[in-house]
């Protein structure tokens, strides 16, 4: 992809964390919209995937995000009792209580997976959360442990393979 300025890729030398965010449509996504409308500046490392409700977020999403090279994952939705779908976030929360402990048990540190409740009015909070997560993960460095798990899947460099 050399059509844009090559500098972007040169700058890559310095570690910049990849953060995948799963956010609910009604609160956090809208909160992030508000942050935008308020022109609150954020670091550029986060990529949002919008789902209707935190209840929709399956732990496999998070595993897949790590498999796809994320250095950190952020899950965010409506505050308890504010869920657009009444109870989706309660069920989600219960899910995470287990899943977090499971990840800890297999050695995936808490610094890689973050949770927040950000309402549609909390544009400022969203910015703080995102920047906080990015900073934390940047400090931790690349998620080498999991990247190693992925290496077997690395697409071979053309020179390594016998091209057909």
């Amino acid at each position, binding site marked *: 992809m050399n059509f844009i300025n090559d500098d972007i890729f040169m700058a890559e030398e310095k570690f910049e964390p990849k953060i995948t965010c799963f956010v609910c449509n009604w609160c956090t996504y809208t909160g992030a919209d508000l942050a935008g409308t308020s022109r609150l500046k954020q670091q550029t490392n986060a990529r949002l995937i919008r789902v209707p409700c935190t209840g929709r977020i399956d732990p496999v999403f998070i595993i897949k995000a790590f*498999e796809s090279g994320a250095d950190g994952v952020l899950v965010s939705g409506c505050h308890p009792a504010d869920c657009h779908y009444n109870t989706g976030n309660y069920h989600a929360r219960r899910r995470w*209580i287990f899943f977090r402990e*499971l990840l800890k*048990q297999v*050695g995936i*540190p808490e610094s890689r997976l973050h*949770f927040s409740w950000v309402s549609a009015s909390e544009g400022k909070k969203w910015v703080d959360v995102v920047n906080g997560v990015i900073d934390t993960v940047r400090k931790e460095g690349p998620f080498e*442990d999991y990247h190693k798990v992925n290496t*077997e899947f690395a697409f071979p460099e053309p020179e390594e393979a016998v091209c057909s």
Partner: protein
Amino acid sequence: MQELIQAAQAALTSKEAAFIIGYALTPDGKKTRPFIARTPDEAAKLVFNHTCAHNLAVYLTRIAKPKEGKMGIVAKGCDTRAIVALIQENKITRDQVYIIGVNCSGVTADVTLPFGADNLPSKCIMCQVQVPPVSDVLVGTAAPYDKPKDAVTERMQLLEAMNEHERFAFWASEFEKCIKCYACRQTCPMCYCEQCIVDKTVPRWIESSASLRGNFSWNMIRAFHLAGRCIGCGECERACPMDIPLMLLNRKMGMVAMQQFNYRHGVNPEEPTLVGSYNMQDNNEFFK
């Protein structure tokens, strides 16, 4: 033994049960294995001894439910937890099973070695249900036995003492071995889905290849799907040909259920399951 056979024969004769899932000796007479008796004659082959480690409840969802009569099953105290759990999860109803409860004096971890304190599976060391809490008929005697320290508990502590990278490396070396045979799943009484998430192809969330990545996701998700549901029978670990210490994950999930929700699955058929219910007061601390 006679007591067990009589109970089974009575149930079959009275058509109370259409068949009895129990244990029979292997031809060498040294071990036992699952056996399904359909006639009183066949029921005469049923036995119960220290080698009856299998949790037969797994068959309750694998064998077609008979039209007449109930499914009879020989169950140790620990096995009845699986039965209750299946009732809690709508897989069976209490009146579809006829439980021949056996008072148990412990089973062996390795069937080729003699029974004794150094050959006990974790479930027997932790056991609190030598007498089955639910049954339709109760047979046998529950003799006390020596309970040594539990190896799983000790390994849990070792794991706890490690830092994250060490722990990750530990699991990487364990999961590396996994061959994706799914013996852990097939032997689990609580793994009854007709299509497991690994078999789902659209999309394939969990890679079916036995590479480290797929193995990580498989083993994590397997444990997660059993979080709050695992009844701790240890069959998965026993079946795993690669000796992956799956109980270290299952036990952890069980501990979360106990510590945060004071909940044990498969104890009370009326109790709502942990997954699928919620409490407004659930731990909220980890949310920013």
